[in-house]
């Protein structure tokens, strides 16, 4: 009897004590696995909160529903934009929808840092940093979470607009969304760096984010055509990476791949992503 307990006791102890205790991922697979783990954590918040999800899906539709008719009404007669004279609702949408999609992507990804601010304050960011996660995976995973709903929103907007004369070119539009995703990772990483720089001063984050957001939006020709504006605005727009994104998205949503605007969009997205992630990683390493 006592013999038996003696033999089983160490066995039980060794299963809880030993085991391959430490698991370490290595190699290029680590980045993707880590990004997946970070993304999973972030997206759980969205999935666990269906009301926020529903409202975030409806928001751009409401915007489109209110702003679109106004745009058609105002510029329907003598539209100074791409189509020239007398645009139909369908043509206005064709011009306007890609802009709205870029806009919601910018809103979403530029807020990546706001959740981070809260997590820096409560301490959970520090806990995440103390795990073996790849630093760039933390950035990319978080930015992708802001971008993921956009895929759904973008598709929803496009489908809803079809009855009003919008032509939905599925494959080029999807390519456009992927391009926006790459751009969004860069914006998300910038937002991440901004939150780290602002840490514990929430107002600073929002102040900078808001003051950058609107000039960028307007100077990209996203909501109103820049052709109607003064020449300094058009010059300024040339230095705004968002301009190239908007132009590329318009071309792609029109169903065209074969246009230099697409190439410029790719360049703008890749550059924003590379610089953003570099800045983000640098500030992640420096700020604890």
């Amino acid at each position, binding site marked *: 009897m006592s013999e038996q307990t003696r033999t089983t006791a160490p066995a039980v102890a060794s299963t809880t004590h030993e085991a391959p205790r430490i698991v*370490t991922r290595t190699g290029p697979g680590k980045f993707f696995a880590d990004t997946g783990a970070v993304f999973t*954590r972030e997206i759980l918040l969205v999935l*666990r909160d269906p009301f926020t999800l529903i409202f975030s899906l409806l928001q751009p539709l409401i915007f489109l529903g209110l702003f679109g008719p106004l745009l058609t009404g105002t510029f329907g007669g003598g539209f100074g934009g791409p189509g020239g004279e007398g645009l139909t609702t369908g043509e206005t949408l064709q011009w306007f929808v890609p802009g709205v999609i870029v806009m919601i992507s910018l809103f979403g990804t530029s807020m990546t840092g706001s959740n981070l601010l809260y997590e820096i304050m*409560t301490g*959970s960011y520090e*806990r995440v940093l103390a*795990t*073996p996660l790849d630093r760039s995976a933390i950035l990319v995973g978080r930015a992708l979470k802001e971008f993921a709903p956009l895929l759904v929103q973008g598709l929803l907007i496009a489908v809803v607009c079809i009855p009003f004369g919008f032509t939905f070119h599925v494959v080029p539009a999807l390519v456009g969304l992927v391009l926006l995703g790459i751009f969004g990772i860069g914006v998300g990483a910038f937002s991440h760096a901004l939150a780290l720089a602002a840490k514990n001063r929430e107002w600073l984050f929002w102040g900078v984010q808001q003051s950058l957001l609107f000039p960028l939006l307007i100077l990209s020709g996203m909501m109103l055509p820049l052709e109607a504006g003064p020449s300094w605005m058009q010059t300024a727009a040339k230095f705004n990476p968002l301009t190239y994104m908007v132009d590329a998205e318009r071309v792609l949503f029109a169903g065209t791949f074969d246009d230099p605007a697409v190439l410029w969009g790719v360049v703008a997205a890749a550059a924003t992503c590379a610089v953003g992630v570099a800045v983000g990683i640098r500030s992640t390493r420096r700020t604890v």
Partner: protein
Amino acid sequence: MIRARGLTKTFSRRKEVVEAVKGIDVDVAEGELVAFLGPNGAGKSTTLRMLTSLLEPTAGEAQVAGYDVVAHPAQVRARLGFIGQGNGGGFSYKVVDELHNQGRFYGLAPAVYRERAADLMAALELSGLEKRAVQSLSGGQRRRLDVALGLMNHPPLLFLDEPTTGLDPHSRANLWEHITAMRERYGMTVVLTTHYLDEADSMAERVVVIDHGEIIADAAPGVLKHEHADDALTLVVSGGDEPAVRAAVPDGFGEVVVFPHDPSTGSGGPDGLRVRVATARGADALPGVIEAFRLAGLTTTSASVRQASLDDVFLNLTGRSLREEAAA
């Protein structure tokens, strides 16, 4: 488990260079329970963050759990648990989700992290709170969740940064019970920072006293108190004046202070003198002092021994009281 040499961290804030940690050498052997004790801003947390690879040292080097913190930070982090000053669990998350997330961060397979999460929740009295949001938990529950999160990778080395700050005495005792049990269970080396003297005194097997970014003492609490502080004997005596009392104190004792006795303090008779005598081993010395007084014709009406505390140690080493700084 830990070997650090010349560990240094300087921060520059607005052209002003602050030397937070000034070339610390410290070794921690496997299985030890070590407390870094010091006032706020002494460099305890900065040291801990360098040892956990969260902060890159300005100079010096450290091997933690077999790896260099600068060259292989991910390997170091995979082998340690870190419980920071804040709450590890994201406030909007459900308890069980965060534990599973933590498992994924450490690259564990789903079956493994599910089992570990359930196991740790049971061990840390978190069962039944699985679906609760972290922000709805009490302070003690949140802290236990922090411990559970820190143990998801079953680390051989656990760091705790001010683990019980802000908890009520009951929760503090409860948390310590759990930390001690988990240490036993996983055979962990534990390193913590604290500015609670009693906590360092009662829990740690070794206390490293840090002040102004430097280690000023490093030993078991009992040894520190013996070497750097004295017990204090307080006696109320009658039947003699101050010179007589001073003369009656045997040789080999430290500072002797004599002042008039105030009966309203409760002990001793209505008249007499209060005598405070410093000595290394108070309890052993007290009977001898009373006997010496008796032989000198003095009557001892009250006697007490106050044991040296780590605060006395800190006071003697730095000239400042840690207790006052903690309260300030």
